[in-house]
């Protein structure tokens, strides 16, 4: 490996470490775009494992951790003993034999710099220079009846750079070991050992079917190892007893295995394996990360805003209807108020007449609508009295309906409503509560009153004309009647009852006609005003209430964009480093230990 790539890699590990730290903090945060618990756990695990890998690499880039993996009784410990040429691990017929992992290491390796997990293992020192850069770890089984064993094994596996998968005639593709192989292939180098080769050979002539080593190879090719490194060994015959050199009776690949471990796995090969390991960790981290990164939310806001605007227009119109109906209940009180405020002051006979009518009307008013004694705050009182009449459960169900509809629209657009629902206003008081509604009704009643009291343009001209007529016409008619009376009394000298009735009818018709004219031109009737009132209230709701909902969309999008920044950046760093590693992998020659991509 060229030193240029070497320094490049070491340099970039720093930025990788920073990115991983950031990612760690991000993972611990609360998320608006929900992170599934499984993905969270997986990310956290991958992140930690990658950190461990990098730390290991930094501590000693050429030290290879080789873990022996296999079921009970396949001969892992015997194999380690044979490789170590001394009894370093317990081996026997009791199953399972190995209780806890054993680390076989060279004296020059600083144990305290190793992963804490390895430090907790049983350790055996050696001084064989040919195994200087290999850390051999014997592990407990994964298929026996003692469950803790597989937990211990699973804890150790992630820190392995390479795995020696040990199988026997019975167990070379047993389900538990195979599951682990499938899970870890590609993440670390795999070499395979078919131990107890003697058992495969014995009685061979008396059996049918394929030889286990060929069957094993085929299974491995199925699992993606095109050219797997398989050693057929009979480890027990290579154990040295009392220092004498062993005398093997069966031909096997044990010596090739030794040669491969000692010379084949040279410094360059070790680095290649380690870099491939780091590379695959980065790959899996990036894959999981890609799945959970929140999508770009800006387009989504646009879509939902469109939906919401329509929904709010409709929903708030329902509210306006509710408020108009509430005001309907006080229509007489409102009419009385408007009639006094709106028609202005009249004089003479018509004023007397109107006062009389007002008095009659007032008698008809229910006490709740009476605001005569409160001329200035009359509308405010009526507004609050009207809003109070809306039953609270109807108001609540209306609010619920609007909110549900908005949320359902968000749900249909793929918004994560479990977090988003906290953004949609739900409080009774703030947005559409009694207070807010009262205020809106009051404001718009006052608005209406102003429109009546201070007409503009043509309405103003009509108003002046009508007022003039009302003020002077009754007086003119009265004057005419007085003249007629004088004429009858002093010139004709006779006043008939029919004359009297005629005069009364005349004045009554005049006043009645004027009243009709007034009612037609000055809209103090609630049935005429309520449509205008509805328009005003609707507009006010749209202007004031709708933005309170719509602004939450932007806020949510804004927060999600911020939440997205960290993993996006981390992913960029990971992918940058991945490219560098891919270049150095191309130069390496350890492909046979890894499955094809």
């Amino acid at each position: 490996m060229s030193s240029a790539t070497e320094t490049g890699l070491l340099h970039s590990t720093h930025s990788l470490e920073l990115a991983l730290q950031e990612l760690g903090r991000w993972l611990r945060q609360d998320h608006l775009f929900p992170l599934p618990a499984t993905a969270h756990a997986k990310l956290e695990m991958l992140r930690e494992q990658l950190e461990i890998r990098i730390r290991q690499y930094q501590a000693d880039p050429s030290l290879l951790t080789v873990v022996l993996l296999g079921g009970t009784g396949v001969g892992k410990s015997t194999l380690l003993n044979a490789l170590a040429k001394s009894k370093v691990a317990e081996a026997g017929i009791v199953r399972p034999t190995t209780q806890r992992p054993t680390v076989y290491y060279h004296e020059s390796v600083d144990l305290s710099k190793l992963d804490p997990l390895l430090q907790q293992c049983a350790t055996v020192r050696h001084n064989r220079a040919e195994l200087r850069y290999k850390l051999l770890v014997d592990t407990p089984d994964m298929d026996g009846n003692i469950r803790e064993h597989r937990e211990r094994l699973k804890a150790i596996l992630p820190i392995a750079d390479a795995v020696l998968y040990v199988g026997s005639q019975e167990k070379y593709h047993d389900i538990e070991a195979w599951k682990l192989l499938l899970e870890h292939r590609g993440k670390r180098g795999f070499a395979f050992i078919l131990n107890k080769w003697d058992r495969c050979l014995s009685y061979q002539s008396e059996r049918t079917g394929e030889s286990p080593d060929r069957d094993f190879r085929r299974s491995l090719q199925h699992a993606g190892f095109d050219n797997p490194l398989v050693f057929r060994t009979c480890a027990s015959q290579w154990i040295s007893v009392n220092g004498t050199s062993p005398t093997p009776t069966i031909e096997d690949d044990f010596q090739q295995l030794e040669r491969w471990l000692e010379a084949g796995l040279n410094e360059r090969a070790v680095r290649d394996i380690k870099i491939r390991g780091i590379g695959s960790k980065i790959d899996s981290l990036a894959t999981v990360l890609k799945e959970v990164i929140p999508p770009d939310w800006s387009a989504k806001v646009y879509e939902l805003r469109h939906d919401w605007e329509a929904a709010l227009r409709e929903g708030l119109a329902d509210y306006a209807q509710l408020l108009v109906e509430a005001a309907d209940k006080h229509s007489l009180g409102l009419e009385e108020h408007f009639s006094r405020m709106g028609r202005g002051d009249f004089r003479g006979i018509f004023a007397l007449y109107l006062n009389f009518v007002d008095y009659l009307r007032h008698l008809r008013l229910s006490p709740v609508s009476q605001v005569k004694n409160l001329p200035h705050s009359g509308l405010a009182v009526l507004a609050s009295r009207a809003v109070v009449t809306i039953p609270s459960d109807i108001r609540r169900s209306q609010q619920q309906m609007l909110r549900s509809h908005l949320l359902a629209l968000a749900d249909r657009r793929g918004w994560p409503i479990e977090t988003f629902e906290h953004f949609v206003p739900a409080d009774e008081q703030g947005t559409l509560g009694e207070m807010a509604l009262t205020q809106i009704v009051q404001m718009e009643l006052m608005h209406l009153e102003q429109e009546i009291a201070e007409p503009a343009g043509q309405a103003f001209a009509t108003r002046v004309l009508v007022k003039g007529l009302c003020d002077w016409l009754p007086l003119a008619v009265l004057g005419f009647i007085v003249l007629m009376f004088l004429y009858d009394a002093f010139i004709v000298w006779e006043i008939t009852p029919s004359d009297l009735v005629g005069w009364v009818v005349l004045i009554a018709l005049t006043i009645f006609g004027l009243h009709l004219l007034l009612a037609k031109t000055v809209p103090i009737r609630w049935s005429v005003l309520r449509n205008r009132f509805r328009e005003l209230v609707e507009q006010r709701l749209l202007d004031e209430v709708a933005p309170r909902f719509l602004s939450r969309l932007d806020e949510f999008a804004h927060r999600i964009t911020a939440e997205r920044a960290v993993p996006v950046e981390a992913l960029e760093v990971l992918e940058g480093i991945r490219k560098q590693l891919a270049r150095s992998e191309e130069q390496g020659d350890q492909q046979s230990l890894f499955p094809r991509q």
Partner: protein
Amino acid sequence: MATASATITSDSNPGVQYVRSLEELLSYYRVRGFEGTDLTEAELIFAVALARYRFAPPKSKLIDERLHVMVFGGAGSGKSTTVNILLGSEVAEVNAQAGYTRHPIAYFTSDETRPAVLWPEHLGPLSRSDAQAPANVDEDRFAWKQLTPPLSDPGFLRRHVVWDGPDLTAKDSTHYQKRVIEIAALAELTVYVASDERYNDELPTNFLQAMLSAGKWVVVVLTKVAEHDSEQFIQLFRDQVVSRLQHRERLVDVITIPMPPPGRFSEIWTDAFPYGTQLREMLENAGGDFLTCRRKARSAAAAYLHHQQARLLEPLRIDLGEWKSWSELIRNAANDAVKQYEAEYLSSVRYEAFEKAQDHILSLLQPAGVLQPLSQFLEIVRTPYRFLKSAWKRFLPALATEKLDEERCLDRVRRAMFDHLQIACSQRKHKHRLWKDLHQEFETRTASIIESSYQQARARQRLDLQQRTQSSVRQVLDTVEANSLLLNVLRTGRLLLDVFAVVLAVYIGYRTNWLLGLLLVPLGIGVAEDIVRMMAAKYMARQRTGLIHQQKENIRELIQVAYIDSLLQLPATMGRRLYSLANLEERLLRELAQAMAEGDAQA
């Protein structure tokens, strides 16, 4: 035996019912998946198969008349070798390739040679294969080999069927495990084969435990051990494995079959070694005579199934809980919808048909016959009053009440219900698979399902409501029209009111001023008519409440049909099934008890 087998296949047999119920559960779990539970498909398959062979076995000679011996164990532990030892001859293929055997094979002797008499077509999911094929054919089938004497002990093979099966531990075993399970359930007697490598492995030990719990007798054969280690090995097995097993009383014995000396491997199943005789004797003596053995096996199976039931039903129980809260959610939402409809629409509904009927009744009250000209005259006199009244109304309109649109109101109500349900599902979607599926369906097809069933039901109902309104109006009219006495009394009353008004007006005019009298006559009869109209309206309103109540019931029914019924079918994966599985627990208990009683009665 013949009578027993004749009754077994009938559908009314409680055993058959019990197996069917369990199969229903299995097929539900297969659709649902086993994630989130610690139950495995294998356990349920085993329960189904066990129930089948103990309470409703398929009819055939070998199933009826023989005890079945199953040899099981991990890959490469020497099952086929053990089978050969048991048979006393090299019949089963012995293979060094781990996981070679892929389907169960039965070995037996019999004078009967017709396959259709010997075997049923199927053993559960396994179909019978009569052709000779290698043991590694990877299909859901069972094979059989009829052996011909001479055999070292033909008597054993005339009373038993010996089964060799696939292993339990090789990497592909999950997909052929159910074949082993089927035969394991069939067998009354089993031989557990464990090698020096495997004897303390978890998977085979779990299977051993399952066999003991389910009431099988087990002989343990330890293989591949050196002869001088045999004693120590048996002790190790007893200490490490047997000591932790439950139902140990059915574990017959532990023996070893050591490695033969080199070159004598093919002699191991002959009389040169004592293992065959030893093994056969143990199996013959394990459960007693045929009938005792069968009876014990059946009651042990019943106890096992009874004990397992809670465990097998646990995932279903959880699903049913969620499903119940889903159905409650729907019902509550439906109730709210009806209430809202009532408040928004029904409280102020008007029926045009009723208004027309009211007019009709008023016209009926007009005097008929000789008095008709009089009433026509009164109508004419009334005209100015009417004119003034309508002018007044036109100038000063009363409070405008908007005409409510029922469809719009219903649409609002329905939308609110739909939104509410969708959100409720979305909020729970991480809690249980049911909600996740429901939520997904809300995004894809729920709306269209509901819409189509709603529109259909609504169209039907609108027609119905129209008819109902008409008939209810007709009923009102009929009570008045048909009853001539009542009609005449009413007509007379009305005429008297008019006459009284006229007389009063004329009297006032006579006493004061003739002009005033002239004005008062039309006013009087106008007011009189208003009084009559008001009374008629009161009467009609009373009749209407019945119709309103009916309409409310209609909407309730509409929502029941369009929403509750169709939503309860969701999600497509489990909704309908859950509906039919709601009372499975009681059903299973009852059927098991009945099956057991039936079996005892036959024995």
